[in-house]
């Protein structure tokens, strides 16, 4: 496929745009202000319409100024309303979004009926986004913005980190949390305004939030999250624009957002560690380990009680634990030996069962002696238990168990 220079410019522009959105989105997500992106994006509409009516021009510069002003107005309202009235933050965000977007839609109607030509490419394009008409100068603007934004975020990394994680500490540590806050909101407003022509009023917020939400599945590190989110944003911009330029009747905004959504779903399912599949597998293997452990423990019990051999039919283990899988897993790992009638622990299997039982006993002892323990920590296997408790404590606990046993 041949890519014309014009398409190339648009592709580069959208990629840069996606990068901006990803970066800013990650900061908003971490600050738990994702909804603010939605409010700001929607409330740019009345600003755009008023700028069109006053300026009488469809040039992006004029409309952009209008958008930026109403973006800042809505950001201010969202942060002030909860402070001066009893309205809570979420309600304030929803109110501002609804009121300003409603006003915008009404203004669009007025413009369309007034015959000023607003229904032509200009205003309609701003609702759902059009990349096809992107000019070289606009692409350049996106590129420069993405670079500047990355630069700001990199150089203010520590201030942004504190302001996202623990703003109250930031205030106490004389880090100018309010200025940082303002900077973050301004970055968001600027990003949204430059994204409007390509993605549109309705969907810009999605391009800000989705890459960050997807990135969160891949990492537990601040810097890496910013990078991945920027990358996903860039990829969405690139892929979406490419697809929409192949089918000229598809609006760019929805296609870009759908690309981002696809990447989000891939992350949700496939990311190692936090992804759904990986979590599910971990859970399953934990469950299996536990069943096998109980199974081995059951055999150990009966071996200690009577003979060293167990007849399958009189298996004293609970029925749940003695399904075929435990048997298969245990014998495959060389923990038990079976003939037609009997099951017996191998030395290795016996060692395992004894170790698990001992660890559990010690853990119970520790839990009784130390009342306050995290709920998350209570359900552990022997490896964790031996890792968590220091060796001397294990000895002490063992002694107290032994002592109770003999007395």
């Amino acid at each position, binding site marked *: 496929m041949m890519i014309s220079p014009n398409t190339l410019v648009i592709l580069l522009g959208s990629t840069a745009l996606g990068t901006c959105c990803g970066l800013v989105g990650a900061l908003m997500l971490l600050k738990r202000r994702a909804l603010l992106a939605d409010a700001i994006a929607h409330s740019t509409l009345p600003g755009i319409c008023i700028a069109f009516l006053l300026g009488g021009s469809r040039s992006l510069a004029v409309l952009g100024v209008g958008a930026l002003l109403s973006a800042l107005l809505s950001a201010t309202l969202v942060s002030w309303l909860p402070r001066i009235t009893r309205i809570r933050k979420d309600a304030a965000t929803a109110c501002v979004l609804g009121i300003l977007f409603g006003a915008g839609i009404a203004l669009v109607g007025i413009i369309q009926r007034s015959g000023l030509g607003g229904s032509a490419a200009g205003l309609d394009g701003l609702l759902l986004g059009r990349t096809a008409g992107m000019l070289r100068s606009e692409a350049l603007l996106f590129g420069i913005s993405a670079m500047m934004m990355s630069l700001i975020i990199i150089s203010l990394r*520590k201030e942004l980190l504190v302001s996202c*994680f623990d703003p109250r500490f930031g*205030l106490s*540590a004389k880090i100018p949390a309010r200025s940082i806050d303002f900077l973050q909101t301004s970055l968001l407003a600027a990003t949204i305004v430059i994204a409007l022509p390509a993605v549109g009023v309705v969907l810009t917020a999605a391009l800000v939030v989705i890459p960050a939400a997807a990135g969160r599945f891949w*990492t537990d590190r601040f810097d890496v*999250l910013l990078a991945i989110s920027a990358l996903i944003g860039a990829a969405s911009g690139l892929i979406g624009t490419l697809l929409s330029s192949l089918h000229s009747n598809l609006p760019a905004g929805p296609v870009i957002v759908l690309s981002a959504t696809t990447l989000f779903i891939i992350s949700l399912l496939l990311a190692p560690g936090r992804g759904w599949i990986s979590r599910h597998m971990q859970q399953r293997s934990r469950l299996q380990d536990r069943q096998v452990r109980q199974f081995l423990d059951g055999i150990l019990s009966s071996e200690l009680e009577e003979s060293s051999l167990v007849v399958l039919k009189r298996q004293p283990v609970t029925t749940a634990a003695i399904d075929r899988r435990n048997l298969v897993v245990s014998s495959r790992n060389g923990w038990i030996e079976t003939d037609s009638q009997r099951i017996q622990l191998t030395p290795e299997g016996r060692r395992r069962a004894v170790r698990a039982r001992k660890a559990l006993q010690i853990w119970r002892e520790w839990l009784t002696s130390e009342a306050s323990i995290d709920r998350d920590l209570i359900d552990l296997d022997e490896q964790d238990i031996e890792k968590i408790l220091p060796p001397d404590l294990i000895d002490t606990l063992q002694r107290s168990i032994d002592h109770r046993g003999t007395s």
Partner: protein
Amino acid sequence: MNSPAIEIHDLTVSYREKPVLWDIDATIPEGSLCAIVGPNGAGKSTLLSAILGTIHPASGWLKIFDQEVGKSQELIGFVPQRESVDWDFPVDVLDVVLMGTYSKLGWFRRPGKAQRDWAMECLEQVGMADLKKRQVGELSGGQQQRVFIARSLAQDARLILMDEPFAGVDAATEEAIRLVLLDLKKKGRTVVLVHHDLQTIENFFDHVLLLNLRLVAAGPTAEIFTGENLLRTYGGRLTLLDEAAEAVRRIRTGRSRTGRDQ
């Protein structure tokens, strides 16, 4: 008595015209280990915020080391309540402790090796050096609290404020915090903390501030921490009366515990 670390004069703080702290006058001497005690909603955390300068008083003033709070460049170490942050945040333990070094770094500069070494030293003090690479969400509640303590140590401040550092922590953490506090005291630092366990006050803190919207009493523990004052602080709040009564009983019988040995 030492020169004052904190002077509070006529302080009133209001939240939407409703006073949450009213007419507070108190002095906390330098080098003391001071507990702020009072029932829920007594304004304990608000008082900490006022000392930090994160909220503005409706009237009155505060001085820290003889400088007015708003104008003072004095760095104050701070341990917020553990619940005040989102622990699922993507940072590791060392990153959080390093935040303590930020204010001395200034704009744009990143923490380097010197800061990392110092942060590690602070982590060691709370017994968490091994966990420096852990994501903070994977820690137990007590360990999270210790990370916050280490961060305040990393600030290396003369005055440290802690908001309920002992709330809901395990025995190991309690012990670690206790040791840190004793060490800070030895170094002559001033520590002011909001505390809720009346039974451990007497033997550990040399200074108390009894608070219930207004100041009930403040001064050296031996003089101030009396049954009468406690009842004045908690009086009328039936649910807390038992706790106060218990503390009073302990004081009267002279039987008190020094912490872990019951």
